């Protein structure tokens, strides 16, 4: 931890020295980047790493671009009475960002439901929004959600929302394909009834049916239950090869893995990227997950990264004293694509920066080389499969293109 404490002031001092050295005069002005993520309550663990990633990206550019000072504000879209994201607070954050003239970019949200609230507000304000975590397809892709999506999120008709994570419709398909390759013939599907889990389980189910995998059960769990022993009994009686849980660590992905083990289920267990974090292994217990737990993730895992990604890993490690998590990668990438947008913008205002971010092509990112398409989605379709072994995620193979 000591390194972490020292590193922050050092980085700040270096940053200001660099600024002083490069541009003699005072900054031309201030550009503000805000993030709106649930910082109170159970999602706090994941959002901490996202914020770390964002801070790292901003520190790396010395806190300034072309003489413009880059400011960062970490907003909380959760409220103490809810202990989770709160639509009122999210709307409040979006409105205050929209009103703040110096604010030029909005990193968020964590929950797709929160994005639905913030997107129209920011769209009217012409503010670029980059999400490090939303995977609900309807936010960007026509025909994937309701009939009126995604047009309802773009009252001005312009695209201002971008995401750097592949959507659920990709991940569900790749996960099912991988299950087939692993020789699964019977699968029991679970989801956590959240937007994320429900979407991904639906896609997984469709693809599994297409591949001829028999679906022996489909259940929506109560993510606050103390244990899932009765569920495990139900699963065992159906005798599947694989249990697929579409959900996150927060919605008890670890506990299910653990209960499958202690309930005597011998088959495989597969989860999506909502569980691709150390906390999942910590919650599930390494001895319960080792060798039988498969995790899919949109992008390559940090330690497989080369070039930019490898640099990121080492600087993250030296700054925060821990290995970066998947979520940290997303946060870092979101901040970097915005910073690149600011650097490339012809005019350093909202419209200029929005245009520059939208024009992102062949971005040399931590997640590989990718571009934003016309809907605001990442072109990166690289997905990787991991297995839990020896209490760590171990890279198995690349799943997508």
């Amino acid at each position: 931890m000591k390194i972490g404490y020292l590193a922050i002031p050092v980085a700040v001092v270096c940053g200001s020295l660099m600024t002083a050295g490069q541009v003699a005069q005072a900054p031309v002005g201030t550009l503000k980047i805000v993030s709106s993520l649930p910082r109170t309550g159970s999602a706090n663990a994941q959002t901490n790493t996202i914020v770390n990633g964002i801070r790292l990206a901003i520190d790396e550019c010395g806190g300034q671009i072309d003489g413009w000072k880059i400011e960062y504000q970490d907003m909380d879209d959760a409220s103490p009475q809810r202990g989770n994201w709160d639509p009122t607070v999210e709307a409040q954050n979006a409105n205050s960002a929209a009103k703040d003239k110096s604010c030029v970019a909005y990193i968020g949200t964590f929950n797709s439901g929160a994005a639905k609230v913030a997107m129209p507000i920011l769209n009217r304000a012409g503010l670029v929004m980059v999400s490090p975590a939303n995977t609900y397809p309807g936010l960007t892709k026509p025909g994937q959600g309701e009939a009126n999506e995604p047009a309802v999120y773009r009252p001005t008709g312009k695209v201002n929302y971008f995401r750097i994570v592949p959507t659920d419709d990709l991940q569900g398909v790749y996960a099912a394909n991988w299950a087939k390759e692993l020789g699964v013939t019977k699968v029991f599907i679970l989801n956590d009834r959240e937007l994320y889990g429900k979407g991904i389980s639906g896609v997984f189910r469709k693809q599994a049916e297409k591949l001829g995998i028999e679906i022996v059960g489909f259940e929506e769990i109560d993510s606050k239950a103390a244990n899932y022993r009765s569920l495990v009994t139900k699963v065992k009686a159906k005798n599947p090869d694989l249990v697929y849980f579409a959900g996150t660590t927060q919605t008890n992905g670890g506990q299910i893995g653990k209960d499958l083990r202690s309930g005597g289920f011998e088959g495989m267990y597969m989860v999506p990227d909502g569980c691709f974090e150390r906390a999942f292994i910590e919650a599930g217990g390494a001895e319960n997950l080792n060798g039988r737990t498969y995790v899919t993730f949109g992008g390559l895992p940090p330690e497989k990264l080369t070039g930019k990604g490898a640099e990121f890993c080492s600087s993250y490690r030296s700054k925060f004293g821990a290995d970066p998590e998947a979520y940290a990668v997303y946060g870092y990438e979101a901040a970097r694509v915005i910073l690149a947008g600011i650097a490339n913008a012809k005019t350093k205002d909202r419209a200029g920066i929005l245009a520059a971010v939208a024009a992102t092509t062949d971005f040399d990112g931590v997640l590989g080389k990718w571009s934003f398409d016309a809907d605001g989605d990442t072109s990166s379709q690289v997905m990787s499969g991991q297995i839990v072994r020896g209490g760590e995620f171990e890279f198995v193979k690349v799943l997508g293109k």
Partner: protein
Amino acid sequence: MRWRPGPIFIILALATCIPLLDQILPVELQLSEAVRGVFLYAILALGLNVVTGYAGLLNLGIAAFMAIGAYTFGILTCEIYPFQLGFWSALGLTIPIGALAGFILGAPTLGLRGDYLAIVTLGFGEIVQDVLKNLDVVTKGTQGINPLPAPTFGGHEWTADDEYKWYYLLLALLVVTVIAIRNLERSRLGRAWFSIREDEIASRSMGIRVERIKMIAFATAAAIAAMAGGLSASILSSTGEPSNYDFQISILALCIVIVGGIGSIAGVLVGALVMVGLNSIVLVKATAWMAAHGIGSQGNVLLSPNNWKFLIFGLALVLAVRLKPSGLVPPRIERAPQ
């Protein structure tokens, strides 16, 4: 019950000024949007005050009626459903539908005593969330229903940019609710509520039809809460997801009523200002200020200001009832000593 307009008028006058002040203040100090939340919770808590404050029935599931209001509003207005009503007619309909829901819950259970009733309302709150989540064919499950319309005046539909209009609309609806409840409070019905709260058996022997009176209290509270739900959905242009209306919201409403002064309208208003103000104004602005000035740290759990929010909220509750056990603004009719 002499009409003493003092505090309410001062509050009202101050409330009217806030958007004007916002015009000249920097973004960080603007308050109108946060105060809007205070109004919304004040309406919700006024509803709860009818059933818990006046009739003395502890209700731990008021948020369920808010959810019913929000989803009713959503289904009646959203373009993906066949009804597609306008803002005012849909908001008007949330009131009878909320009352009906209150009636459905109340009818079989009002014979229950005190906390047995409380647990049933708590259970109802959970059931409503589950049903909204599970009947996704109708309610879109956790997706939420959006977009929802804002009020239209003279052919111009408001957007989020018209925030001061929203502010004054909520203020006006709050004032209307306060006047309506004040009239109820002083009516025959209001006196009947007080009477069953103080002594059910005595009231019964005086010829008050206790079950019916309780039922009306239940339905009134549900109707007001449903209206608050419809309003909140319209402001957000989305119903959010069912768990946005969970037990924690019911608890917040209850804390507003009790900390403010149970059974007192002015008390509920002050309670909403203090509780919601603490959560969504003071704590939000304070953490934003600390973050902007580099106070606090990510690495250490104790140094991150966000991690203190539960504790501060809890301490505020404990201290409030400790220092003012009968509320910040207690009602003028004191309850009989127990």
